[in-house]
């Protein structure tokens, strides 16, 4: 049986995390290819439903990566995002998925190394959790297939 390769969706803020990921690349730091980056103008733009839909459509884990506290380009989008992430964590817990598949992290544009480390660590912790149970279900497989086609 093929080893489970988790799919991680990372919503990365244009002003920090996205640049940090870019820097990790320039610095030739390797981080797992499991992490699929979605650039957002600010993590404050990431709604609970975006995280939920990512999981519903087959992601095994979701990272929301925003600026360090106090550094948000739009004042406090990152703080709002952190609150939404914890709301979604509770919601996931309520449906028996556990809160661990979703995480909020903060970093600055210069932290390429930190980005690579977060990507590696989160990928490993999701790998340990095993596949998203939704994706494993027959209906989920059909849906994931439709989503990727």
């Amino acid at each position: 049986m093929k080893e489970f390769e988790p799919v991680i969706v990372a919503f990365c803020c244009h002003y920090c995390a996205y640049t940090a990921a870019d820097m990790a690349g320039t610095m030739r730091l390797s981080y797992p290819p499991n992490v699929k980056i979605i650039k957002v103008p600010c993590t404050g733009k990431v709604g609970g439903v975006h995280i939920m839909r990512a999981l519903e459509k087959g992601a095994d884990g979701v990272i929301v990566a925003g600026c360090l506290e106090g550094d948000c380009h739009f004042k406090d989008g990152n703080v709002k995002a952190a609150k939404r992430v914890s709301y979604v964590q509770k919601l996931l817990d309520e449906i028996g998925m556990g809160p661990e598949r979703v995480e909020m992290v903060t970093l600055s544009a210069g932290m390429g190394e930190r980005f690579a480390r977060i990507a590696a660590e989160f990928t490993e912790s999701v790998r340990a959790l095993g596949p998203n149970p939704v994706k494993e279900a027959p209906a989920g497989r059909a849906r994931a297939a439709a989503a990727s086609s």
Partner: protein
Amino acid sequence: MITAERKPLEEILALIEPYDRILLVGCNECVTVCAAGGRKEVALLSSALQMARMKEGKTLDTVETTLERQCDPEYVEELVASIDRADAVLSMACGCGVQEVAKRFKEKPVFPAVNTKFMGASERQGVWAERCQGCGDCLLGLTGGICPIARCSKRLLNGPCGGSSNGKCEINPDVDCAWQLIWDRLKALGLESRYEDIAPPKDWRTSRDGGPRRIIREDLAS
């Protein structure tokens, strides 16, 4: 506004357990403002319910829609377009909306996804507090604009009771003593003397105690 809070997922899942196709209906009015049952909450709940079902190896089809006003038959009528695609309706509106949908679609089971809480105001972002009980005979003019029926734990019309301590209610230090607020406000308005006017026993007929209420505006009624 009317405030509400989503029911626990477990309870919602139990309500819709026998059905595979759900029409999930939000409302654009009060429940949107208090973040309980607007478009965003409809999307989140839909996603959560679907994942919960898929996790069990089952499916759930949801049709999401959010009406302008679910307590108004004119808007509820819009559900005609999608009602046939569902075996049951899950409403995220207040109890008024749930009942309007149930009245219109007699052949479909309709379930509430939120608990309707109270008529309240926004204290700050994300915090709502009770302000009115709809007693039908407003006495705010006598109490400095603070309602003792909604805001005193014992709804005393001649308070405060002996449990008022440092401006807080004895039932919970987070609850303001309504009568302390009333007194402070009367003082600020120079109306202290009003405090000693006794509020006589209230006629509760104008409230729920008189049976279900309705308003008829002859000039508007058809």
